[in-house]
């Protein structure tokens, strides 16, 4: 069943067209990956789904409802959680307060269970609980950002370059958790990545974005084996 459908979505920044008619579909329980070079429009696509900026044409349908004109805090209420690029945790607040803010939209009765779940997912956060989030390492901040999004009990998780600026070992840990979230909780995930190898390996389906257009799509493993994809995004990349 399709959870999120984008049809002919265009997004402009003034005269610049960042997305030029994109069709993307995310089904319930899938991990879908978007890969592409810098400036291909990956982040714009995620942000357009969230509602800032708004698409200039096309439709975004979520659970059968057109959400083109909803602002970000409204799409969040529908269960779409974004882990923004660059993590964007609240640096002067403690880890615990960050998680608490993540639960803004969730029913308070789930708070304890969700908190325990997140702290189990990333045990390091347990130790850092009352520490200021700004003092965490990059990897820990990414873990916090993901946990914070999970505290809102989303039905669709949008991840914008979770591997950005992290060490290979931490990247592996983050991707393991993403796969695990999908497997054990059935979480639907739309993942935007530069790190094509890891991202394609765990994706059910994937899209390749180039200059605001989808130029290729298919199963994750399938694209991983594709010579063109290998040449453009993988050769010499992180394996």
């Amino acid at each position, binding site marked *: 069943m399709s959870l999120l459908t984008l049809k002919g979505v265009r997004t402009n920044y003034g005269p610049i067209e960042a997305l030029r008619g994109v069709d993307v579909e995310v089904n319930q329980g899938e991990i879908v990956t978007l890969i592409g070079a810098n400036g291909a429009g990956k982040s714009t696509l995620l942000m357009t789904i*969230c509602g*800032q900026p708004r698409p200039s044409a096309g439709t975004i349908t979520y659970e059968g409802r057109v959400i083109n004109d909803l*602002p*970000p*805090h409204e799409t*969040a*209420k529908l269960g779409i*959680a*974004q*882990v*923004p690029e660059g993590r*964007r*945790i*609240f*640096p*002067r*607040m*403690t880890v*615990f*307060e960050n998680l*608490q*803010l*993540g639960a*803004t*939209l969730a029913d308070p009765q789930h708070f*304890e269970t969700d*908190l*325990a779940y997140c*702290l189990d997912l990333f045990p390091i956060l*347990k*130790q850092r*609980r*009352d520490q*200021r989030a700004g003092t965490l390492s990059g990897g820990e901040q990414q873990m916090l950002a993901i946990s*914070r*999004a999970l505290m*809102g009990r989303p039905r669709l998780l949008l991840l914008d370059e979770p591997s950005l600026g992290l060490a290979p070992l931490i990247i592996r840990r983050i991707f393991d958790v993403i796969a695990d979230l999908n497997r054990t909780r059935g979480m639907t995930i739309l993942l935007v990545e530069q790190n094509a190898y890891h991202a394609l390996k765990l994706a059910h389906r994937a899209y390749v974005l180039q200059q605001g257009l989808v130029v290729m799509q298919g199963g994750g493993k399938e694209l991983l084996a594709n010579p063109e994809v290998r040449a453009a995004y993988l050769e010499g990349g992180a394996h």
Partner: protein
Amino acid sequence: MTTQTLTHRAPALLKDAAVAALLALVLSIPFIGLYTANSDQGQGLAVLSRWHWVGYVVAIVFVGRLLFSLAGDALARRRMRNAGKKPLVSIAMGHTLGRAFIVLALLFAVTLPFMPYSDRYVLDLGMTVLIYIMLAMGLNVTVGLAGLLDLGFVAFYAIGAYTFALMSTVFGLGFWICLPLSGLVAAAFGVLLSLPILRLRGDYLAIVTLGFGEITRIVLLNWQSLTGGPNGVSGIPRPTLFGMSFDRRPPEGLSSFHEVTGIEFSSEHRLMFLYFIILGLVLLASWVVWKLRRLPIGRSWEALREDEIACRSLGINPTASKVSAYATGALLGGFAGCFFAARQGFVSPESFGFIESALILAIVVLGGMGSQVGVVIASLFIVLLPEFAREFADYRMLLFGAAMILIMVWRPGGLLSNREPTLKLSSLKGAGP
């Protein structure tokens, strides 16, 4: 090693001081070296010179700048030495100290009017401090918690004051009815101001809020028919206690405090009463803000200050947060204004210039953005320092400015820059390391 670095740095420091001295020389030739006096011939002005003064100034600047740099170096070295060491005051100890300070300050504030040394002057000063605490608490919500700069906060203070002044003189309403009204009117203007600035930040926000403050003052100054223009509004009635007036001969229809209670009349009772009103207001305000910080609305303010984009993705409506932050800040400013009008019995636009906005902002920044205890300490400092420095007469404001600079150099994040978490986890004890 210290002397080694010093000799190493000496040329740079001397050069720096020389540049400062040169600048002083250039500036002081026209400003200090030349002056005008009535000429001996009786008619017109003559331009005279006093070059030795220029010499003094240049010398002072040279030595001062050199000492300043040396002090900065010493501070930096000490900081480096202390880098690995444990802080002098641990977080837990800081917490206890904070508690102790609050209790002591409260005791002091409550007993102040009954102290033998408390005369008119002390009570008046106490009230001024409390008004500034109230104002700074309001601005602390907007600037400290929500991170929205406001250079025109005095507008809400003025609106609160004029609301009471006009309501009482035109409609004959009393202080206790006008107090909430003033707050609400100010809050309404807070909402009004927040609408055009939803998309602005940083410098732009500063300019718009500055404009708002000035517009308010200029409207008050020029709307002669309503506000009386520069003459202001006078004859504002004094607050009453359950219908009892504190005047020797109460106005018609009111009983007087000394007759009802049988306590001998003293004009100081009125001051004590006013003092307790503003003390009560400040306590109420600080309690409310303290409480708000722990509610979703207060947390959303702080989240907004930290990262607006993240806020949105978590479902926090930034518009609602901003509007409510401005309204809450304005509400407290309005209360302070209402009390100010009641204390003075007279309001005029002169009391609400930009310097007031700047002072209130200075209190918030000096105290450490968002810190309520910091606001109290900084208010005491800002109001009392110029008073203690009265002996220095003309140099009083100079000292005041210098003290502010020193504090900001010493504690760049404000006096209390450590943000207190709103909540610690107690239900999951034992889950930690």
